[in-house]
């Protein structure tokens, strides 16, 4: 399966890029174009803030600060990545700063992780019809958000960047200040833990 890296792997020049003209106009000083860019991505950046901080007020601050900083540093954006990826980098840094401020002694992304003994899943059961068919969208959002919220903070950041925002392993490693093997190890554990959490809702025998 190559889906996981599909968007990150697309070269910006290979696809029509509706945001490119808006970015150039905003860089030339057109505030309305910047606001249009904000409107395109505000809900995604808010979700990113929620996924990382697990708190609405923090997520709102993360989103506001990220867009204000993006505007301040718009001249630094060279167009060598998608504008959204550039925004994600800014927002993730804001989110991580917020976490450190909130709990200065608890957040460490580079703590050693446990051995392999915990990996083998305990519950093995096929899932029924697709979650999108079984649950209303609001309910599905709640289930997904709750499951992510139960992950340790360092696992959460890796999963969010790799599997929701679709950054590459290397980009994620660079952003979080971790090695590529550390990212891979956390991604594996995050995916398995989320699988186990979602299993409670999506397994075939479960009647929603």
């Amino acid at each position, binding site marked *: *399966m190559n889906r*996981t890296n599909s968007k990150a792997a697309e070269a910006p020049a290979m696809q029509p890029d509706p945001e490119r003209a808006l970015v150039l106009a905003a860089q030339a000083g057109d*505030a309305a174009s910047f606001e249009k860019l904000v409107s395109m991505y505000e809900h995604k950046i808010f979700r990113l803030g929620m996924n990382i901080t697990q708190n609405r007020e923090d997520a709102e601050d993360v989103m506001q600060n990220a867009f204000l900083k993006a505007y301040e540093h*718009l001249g630094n954006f060279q167009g060598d990545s998608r504008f959204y990826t550039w925004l994600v980098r800014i927002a993730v840094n804001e989110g991580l700063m917020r976490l450190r401020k909130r709990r200065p002694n608890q957040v460490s992304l580079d703590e050693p992780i446990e051995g*392999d003994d915990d990996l083998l899943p305990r519950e093995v059961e*096929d899932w029924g019809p697709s979650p999108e068919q079984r649950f209303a969208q609001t309910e599905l959002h709640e289930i997904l958000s709750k499951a992510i919220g139960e992950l340790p903070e360092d696992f959460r950041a890796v999963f969010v960047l790799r599997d929701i925002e679709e950054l590459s392993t290397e980009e994620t490693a660079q952003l979080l200040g971790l090695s590529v093997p550390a990212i*891979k190890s956390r991604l*594996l554990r995050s*995916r398995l833990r989320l699988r186990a959490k*979602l299993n409670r809702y999506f397994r075939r025998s479960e009647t929603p």
Partner: protein
Amino acid sequence: MKCKDVIREISDYLNGDLDAGLMGDLQRHLEHCEDCRVIVDTTKKTIDVYCNSEPAPLADDIRERLHAALRKKLFKNPA
């Protein structure tokens, strides 16, 4: 390859990052191990359900505060 080896490689397998030798070993294991097939399949579905889920629209009050903050900055200090 044993079940725990499959689990250890599941993430790279789903990313398409396994080398040909390991990929072959893993696929041979999946042919005869129903449990691992289910785990691989439900792990893939886990990634897909997150990846495909569209974020909810921003609540009106949050959106209004964001754009008010932006306008204050944009008009005070044009790029």
